[in-house]
């Protein structure tokens, strides 16, 4: 197990990168601590696969260093780095038994047969495939094969880290639940560094203690699922995390706060102070659909809005309202009864209203 550090790391697939746009990964420093369960989350093309391949050694970074426990490993192969990888599609030898598949990485390392047997049984037990050990891998279902793939990663005791590249893509939703839960338990039991790449926020947040959100070759936020949800420090994180994402409204400065259309949104003094210090006119407010409050009666801090769509998602509703010229999405419970065209009173609770300048969150200086 190792601590993995990326120091002044950048990567470009072009030989003469001219600007930021030529970089798959723009310069960054990052540490993956020993024994952590991490996710690397972002849309396709954000650089997350490049990042994973740089950690594993499949790709050599064009700039900067990769360090395992302080030792530079840029030139080492995945095998020499002791990295185990689990891919989208299960990698198993169909003609071998499950036992031989699991034993394979150990036999390669010349571990004594008695030890191999004990270890294979231990791993098979954890993955709940013990009863399938002497079956040929070709007779397994997709999720069983993926378990064997994971087992091959877990079986080696000297492994530095396990990297998962969208491992649940081919698994049915009903089984995803079980496998995700299994992975969490394995992490708790083996205390191993795990990095899990995905574009699915739910997979990332249920697996990882901390998530690195990537966007255009940069890690825009590294935090717990709760931090990403409650305190997104970039508009992209607000948009990408959450379904639907954060409501973002372009606003302008005005006395007492910021405005959009005829609506004045009051701000906290520290937010106003920040706005006075910067000159940018790229200002937005953000509030999550879960936090917009809807009430029947008008009050000092409410605006009247019109309902334009109600999406019934079974146990909750996503309501679209129009406030001035802005469309807002609001999450409501099953009891929401206002129909399309109806009027509602909308307000933004202060603690959930975020202010963004040049797409970055304005944070309170403590």
């Amino acid at each position, binding site marked *: 197990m190792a601590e993995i550090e990326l120091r002044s790391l950048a990567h470009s697939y072009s030989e003469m990168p001219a600007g930021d746009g030529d970089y798959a990964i723009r310069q960054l420093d990052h540490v993956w601590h020993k024994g952590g369960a991490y996710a690397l989350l972002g849309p396709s093309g954000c650089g997350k696969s490049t990042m994973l391949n740089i950690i594993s050694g499949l790709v050599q970074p064009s700039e900067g260093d990769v360090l395992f426990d302080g030792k530079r490993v840029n030139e080492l192969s995945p095998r020499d780095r002791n990295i185990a990888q689990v891919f989208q599609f299960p990698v198993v030898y169909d003609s071998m038994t499950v036992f031989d598949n699991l034993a394979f990485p150990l036999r390669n390392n010349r571990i004594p047969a008695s030890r191999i047997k004990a270890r294979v049984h231990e791993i098979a037990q954890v993955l709940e495939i013990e009863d399938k050990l002497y079956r040929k891998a070709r007779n397994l279902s997709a999720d069983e094969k993926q378990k064997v793939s994971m087992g091959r990663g877990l079986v080696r005791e000297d492994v530095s880290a396990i990297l998962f590249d969208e491992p649940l893509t081919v698994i*049915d939703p009903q089984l995803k639940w079980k496998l995700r839960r299994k992975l969490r338990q394995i992490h708790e039991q083996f205390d191993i560094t795990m990095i899990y790449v995905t574009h699915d926020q739910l997979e990332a*947040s249920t697996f990882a203690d901390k998530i690195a959100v990537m966007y255009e070759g940069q890690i825009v936020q590294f935090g717990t699922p709760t931090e990403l949800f409650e305190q997104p420090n970039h508009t992209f994180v607000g948009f990408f*995390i959450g379904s639907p994402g954060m409501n973002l409204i372009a606003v302008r400065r005005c006395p007492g706060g910021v405005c959009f259309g005829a609506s004045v949104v009051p701000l906290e003094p520290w937010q106003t102070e920040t706005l006075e210090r910067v000159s940018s006119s790229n200002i937005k407010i953000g509030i999550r659909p*879960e936090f917009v409050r809807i009430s029947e009666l008008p009050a000092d801090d409410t605006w009247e809005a019109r309902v334009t769509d109600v999406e*019934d998602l*079974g146990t909750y509703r996503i309501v679209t309202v129009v406030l001035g010229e802005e469309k807002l999405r609001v999450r409501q419970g099953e*009891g929401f009864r206002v129909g399309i065209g109806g009027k509602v009173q909308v307000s933004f609770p202060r603690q959930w209203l975020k202010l963004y300048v040049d797409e970055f969150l304005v944070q309170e200086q403590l």
Partner: protein
Amino acid sequence: MSLRLENLSREVDGVLYIRDANLTFEAGSFNVLLGRTRAGKTSLMRLMAGLDKPTSGRLLYNSEDVTGQSVQKRNISMIYQQFINYPNLSVYENIASPLRLAGMPESRIESRVRETAAMLRIEPLLERYPLELSGGQQQRTAMARALVKDATLILFDEPLVNLDYKLREELRTELRELFRERQCIAVYATTEANEALALGGTTTLLHEGQVVQNGPVMEVYRAPVNTLAAQLFSEPPMNMIRGRVTDTEVTFDEYSHHALARPLTELVPGAYWFGIRPSHIGLVPANDDDLEMSMEVELCEISGSETFMHVRNRHFEMVLQLMGVHQYHTGAPVKVYLPINKLFVFDQGEKLVHTPSSVPGGGV
């Protein structure tokens, strides 16, 4: 205009892919086929398209028998999981290709292509080639090609599965809007219950080649005909607990005893399966007559806005979907509360016998 499947079956080398399907699809309808991998979604679509021949049964289009008619003779579009575009043609030519094949005059082709591309927001990309596009843009191109001609039947075979979930969210909303105005029959296959709910329309639940249930999406969701339908149409899957009703009490797995209260008093004494959706179980009681159960926490999965809490006791396990962050250690004792009016009840044959009652201010 309608497409009717009559006792349609397909068998290959002794394996039954579709068993006795009876379904009707109306023009202007949006139909979702929901089922796990290998449930028969693709097989059914291929039969509808005429790409495969049924072993028995008939396919009727406006009461005309079209069984075994080749796909070329019928006006059908199909969109697959993998984005299929012609790599050597520009986006414009890709979209135009079905119209050229149909011999449409050049002047009309251009307006149709531009109109469709605008609808799918790829108009600025018309001069590019597929390989220069992102995955989402490639799939939009494939969709534009399917939508550009006035097909009478459009089949979507898990078209969004290879895309980011954010893009999926976006395209799903667009699809809903695109089909509001169209008079064709749209059929959409997915493995995800939440996608079926978001798309709306009609839902057909498929399992092992058989139609389990079919109807307007909310009807199927609110009254699943059996435990299988309930499990298929719930994400995470509906919790199922075995129980027994006597004249005075309801007992779960001969372990958790509760005084019998309305509406369960309507049940004939006997053994049942009780189902409850993960989002309906609470950590605090919502009503006086909630069923209280002592459980142990197995795992909390926190998504940021929600927590999926897995709990168990010696007899059964459950999943709770809770709003907000709830952090408990493995093994921590918790009391959970099941609202009695949110219970689904299934008989020993796993058939639905009772649905949650609609209470004022609350749905099912």
